[in-house]
């Protein structure tokens, strides 16, 4: 048995912090008085932790989850490059079942945390749009793969840099992403061409928008189509975030400031 605990001892020696991912109340209390600073990373601060990083998406990929937590902690100056931390995460199912030793490095800043926390739109709105895009990517429209383009935030400017392709089905309506009916509506409307424009607070301003950004200096991977180009380019011209579901490869990508920030596979969620 001694050898086994040494194995764990090696992993947690000289760490500068302990990151608990979605701990239960009793689990958190056990480590509250630990000799290293404890950081809770969870969708909601249910344990009233002092240092807390909000996890907007339950990243199925543990690497993404840890990276997001570390990035959030760096952003809040809880840890800095060079620190070593132990992460207590659940790889199989909900309860934390493993400990991972991570060295915090500057290149871990991928902008995922920034995408949620520092976007113009509310983090909850971005999360809701992500969820719609992921679900749309998983199920498609009546089994057929679909593409979709959501421009979130800074809606006033986006509207001024785009034109309608047809009547706006959302005109004078008060529909917000996150309402249960919306998922169905967006799925139906995703058959239409053009972009969805969503305001900072999550109001669906318009569908059927043809975006007219200037595409100069947009840095997106080659091989992506017009939808990604349009979405990426509008984020350079405005403070919006673009969330794009690709029809050809089924991936969900997020753009901000003209750059691709995040690429996820809907099947992983």
């Amino acid at each position, binding site marked *: 048995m001694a050898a086994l605990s040494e194995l764990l001892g090696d992993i947690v020696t000289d760490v500068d912090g302990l990151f608990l991912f979605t701990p239960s109340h009793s689990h958190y209390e056990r480590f509250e008085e630990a000799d290293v600073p404890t950081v809770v990373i969870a969708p909601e601060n249910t344990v009233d932790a002092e240092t807390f990083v909000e996890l907007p998406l339950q990243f199925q990929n543990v690497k993404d989850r840890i990276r997001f937590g570390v990035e959030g902690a760096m952003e809040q100056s809880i840890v800095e490059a060079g620190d070593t931390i132990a992460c207590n995460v659940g790889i199989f199912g909900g309860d934390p079942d493993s400990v991972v030793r991570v060295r915090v490095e500057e290149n871990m800043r991928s902008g995922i945390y920034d995408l949620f926390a520092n976007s113009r739109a509310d983090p909850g709105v971005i999360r809701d749009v992500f969820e719609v895009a992921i679900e749309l990517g998983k199920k498609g429209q009546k089994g057929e793969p679909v593409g979709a383009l959501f421009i979130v935030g800074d809606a006033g*400017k986006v509207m001024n840099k785009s034109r309608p392709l047809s009547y706006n089905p959302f005109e004078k309506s008060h529909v917000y992403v996150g309402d249960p009916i919306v998922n169905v509506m967006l799925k139906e409307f995703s058959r239409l061409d053009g972009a969805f424009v969503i305001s900072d607070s999550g109001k669906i301003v318009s569908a059927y928008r043809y975006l007219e950004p200037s595409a100069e200096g947009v840095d997106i991977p080659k091989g992506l189509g017009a939808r990604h180009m349009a979405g990426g380019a509008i984020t350079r011209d405005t403070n919006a975030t673009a969330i794009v579901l690709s029809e050809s490869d089924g991936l969900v990508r997020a753009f901000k400031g003209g750059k691709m920030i995040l690429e996820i596979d809907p099947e992983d969620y």
Partner: protein
Amino acid sequence: MMGFASPLPLQSIGSLVERIVQTAGLRFLGVLAILALGLVLAYTAGSLVQRLLVSFGVPDSIEGTAFERTARDFDTSTVEILSWLTRYFVLGLALFAALSFVGIDYVDRFWGVVIAILPQLFIAILVLIVGIVVGDKVELLVAERFRGVKLPQVSILPALAKYTVFFLAALIALSQVGVAIVALVVLLGAYLFGLIVLSAVAFHDLLKSGAAGTYLLFIQPYSIGDEIVVGDVQGVVQEFDMFVTYVEAEDREYILPNARVFDEGIGRIR
């Protein structure tokens, strides 16, 4: 042996009844019948109340209130307490019916008063229990509503709501049993008056903006992306809700109360 034994007690019971009828008269039998009927009625009424409350989803909706939790501590529940209360009430009525049937002289002042007060007392207790449960529930709901607000002072609001409901319930209960409550009613009036006047003064601007916002949301004279002028503010509408409109100009974002949008009028730039 057993086969021969059974008719014997029956005979003796028959003779016993006969003897009782002879000695106590029909009146006694009537009393027994009334009491039995009362028991059955009380039991069914209680069960009916219990079933009605359960089918209306009362146990679920009062889950977690202090009264319910206390009741749980005593191994019972609010619904059960209410159903037993109904049973005792019906049983009490039956008892008095029986007493009057026997002709016990309830001209006697004491019993007269008791009978007169019994229904009121029942209703008063009912009102009190309902008041306590509703008060608890209101506290929970208000607390839930303000949970996102991390302000210690906010915790006074749920308690205030709870005690207002308690106070009202106590007032109704007391007036049921005929206790003089004029002073309490005056107190209530003063309290409500203060509450209404204070909130009218405090929320004056919000109410005004809310009224204007209702119109703006319904009619939508401008929508997100339009460039508008309100007074000396010019910019692109980014967002609008019940109370404010967010207008973004070149280098700054204005948050205009809807009342002001209404006061100054809107200029739409094409």
